[in-house]
């Protein structure tokens, strides 16, 4: 079953756009792939290495802004911007890591929130980058892979998002089984013990955040090209950082498939409640969402993967 399940799932994902042509279900799946990829990336730093970051929107925003500014101001293809964004995110992550990795537990989480707020404030006040008004990605026709814009159908976006998710999963899986994956988990479980066994704790943490930041930035570029408009409120907010880790937590922290499972449950839930119950300024969808989060935290803190595992071993 396990061996058959994965190829079946992947096959279903590949033929889905051919079977369903309605835009909304496609949009929901694209969002599942995007948030799944982001949560997998977050999970590399937080789940395996134990460093709970509440500032991952920084890397997402860097990815979105780098590519968009390069397209809008320099006329480069977004693919080059995607690579540049990932590189920049890695650089910034190393800078951020310098102060924050000295902290632990709640101090670390709050320091990452502070970093996120600083970066958002800086971008809001940066006129060349559009300031608080944001930037539009210049519309280019016709649709082409080079321009990373597809106005006729969401199918190509769908496959790119799927590719992004598979890339993140492949990286996470490789890391999970590599030497560094074991180092990460050792640091998470007991930093002193890991250090005394000769693991270079600071270097391994920097490695974890670099990988995590690069993957998150790729997601940011995708988001910018998908919506074709970004502003600081949409790509740098604390709520995005929290949503990313919420997806991972719901699915199961520190597991390979947990974040994907979390995205598969949470994204449709929030998209459909938004469509059915949202609007009218009543925020009923958020009310349910908040209640649900509390329920998960109290009833099933190990995430949905905890349920899956319990069934697998009766």
């Amino acid at each position: 079953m396990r061996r058959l399940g994965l190829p079946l799932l992947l096959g279903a994902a590949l033929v889905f756009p051919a079977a369903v042509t309605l835009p909304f279900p496609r949009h929901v799946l694209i969002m599942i792939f995007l948030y799944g990829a982001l949560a997998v990336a977050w999970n590399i730093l937080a789940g395996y290495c134990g460093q709970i970051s509440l500032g991952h929107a920084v890397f997402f925003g860097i990815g979105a802004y780098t590519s968009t500014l390069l397209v809008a101001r320099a006329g480069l293809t977004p693919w080059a911007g995607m690579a540049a964004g990932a590189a920049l995110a890695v650089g910034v992550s190393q800078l951020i890591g310098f102060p924050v990795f000295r902290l632990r537990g709640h101090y670390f989480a709050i320091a990452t929130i502070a970093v996120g707020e600083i970066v958002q404030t800086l971008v809001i006040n940066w006129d060349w980058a559009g300031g608080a008004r944001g930037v539009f990605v210049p519309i280019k026709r016709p649709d082409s892979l080079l321009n990373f814009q597809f106005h006729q159908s969401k199918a190509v976006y769908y496959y790119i998002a799927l590719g992004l998710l598979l890339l993140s999963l492949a990286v996470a899986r490789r890391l999970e089984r590599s030497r560094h994956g074991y180092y990460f988990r050792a640091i998470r479980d007991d930093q002193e013990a890991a250090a005394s066994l000769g693991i270079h704790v600071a270097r391994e943490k920097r490695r974890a955040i670099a990988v995590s930041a690069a993957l998150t930035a790729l997601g940011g570029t995708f988001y910018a090209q998908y919506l074709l408009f970004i502003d600081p409120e949409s790509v740098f907010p604390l709520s995005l950082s929290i949503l990313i880790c919420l997806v991972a937590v719901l699915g199961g922290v520190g597991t390979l498939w947990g974040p994907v499972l979390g995205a598969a449950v949470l994204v449709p839930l929030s998209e459909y409640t938004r469509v059915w119950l949202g609007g009218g300024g009543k925020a009923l969808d958020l009310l349910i969402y908040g209640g649900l989060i509390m329920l998960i935290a109290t009833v099933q803190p190990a995430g949905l993967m905890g349920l899956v595992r319990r069934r697998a071993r009766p």
Partner: protein
Amino acid sequence: MGCLYALIAAGLSLIFGLMEIVNFAHGEFLMLAMYVAFFAWSLAHLDPVLALPLTALALAALGWATYWGLIRRVLGGPMLAQIFATFGLAVFLRSGAQFLWGVDFRTIKDPLLAGRLSVGGVFLGLPQLTASALALLAFLGLWLFLRHSETGLALQATAQDRQAAALMGIDTQRMFALGWAIGSACVGVAGGLLAMFFYIFPDVGGAFALLAYVTVALGGFGNVPATLLAGVLVGLTEVFAGLLIAPAMKYAVVFLLYLAVVLWRPQGLFGRF
């Protein structure tokens, strides 16, 4: 402002010191306190200053209920479960407020205290001044309670070692609930004071809560007097950064200050690990 930050942060710090849980719904508690003050004014024509006991009591009840209903269930769980329990509560309360009362900005008109005072050529708003004074007073009361009353000492004992405290016959569950009630009452007072001169709307808590986290971490978690100093420091930094650099950048400067301090002292200015 610094005194108010300190009072908001003190509640957070108290709760954290007691059981190592950061209440991410703290800003929403503040928002609710402001709404309580608003409705006390609009329905019963009670001035925010006079309604302070009411807001404090209402929030204490909320904190108490939060502990018994939610926090007790995640106390033994992983840190992430605790973060998300309170974060879920935050989303729930904020959207609940939006659902019930809408997103309109509300203000309390003609409070008892209005106008401004000139002190040596510097104009100070009378409501702000009273708020700082009352916040300081509340802070003093909290400190005296913690240091000198039997219950306060029991609270501190629980914070230091909950098992030893339990062995000494202290009902730690009750102490935790009491910590939540007192911590929330601090926010209640702060919210009542803030309602005198600040807009009231469902998202108002966010910015204040962020500053409160930084204030607490700056002073050192669980150290209530240090929180006061850190709060004043944050307030001053905000004002001077707004004056000297740019008003839009003031929060960024505050957060930068925090990161700089943390680089030098990871446990905060007066914290212990």
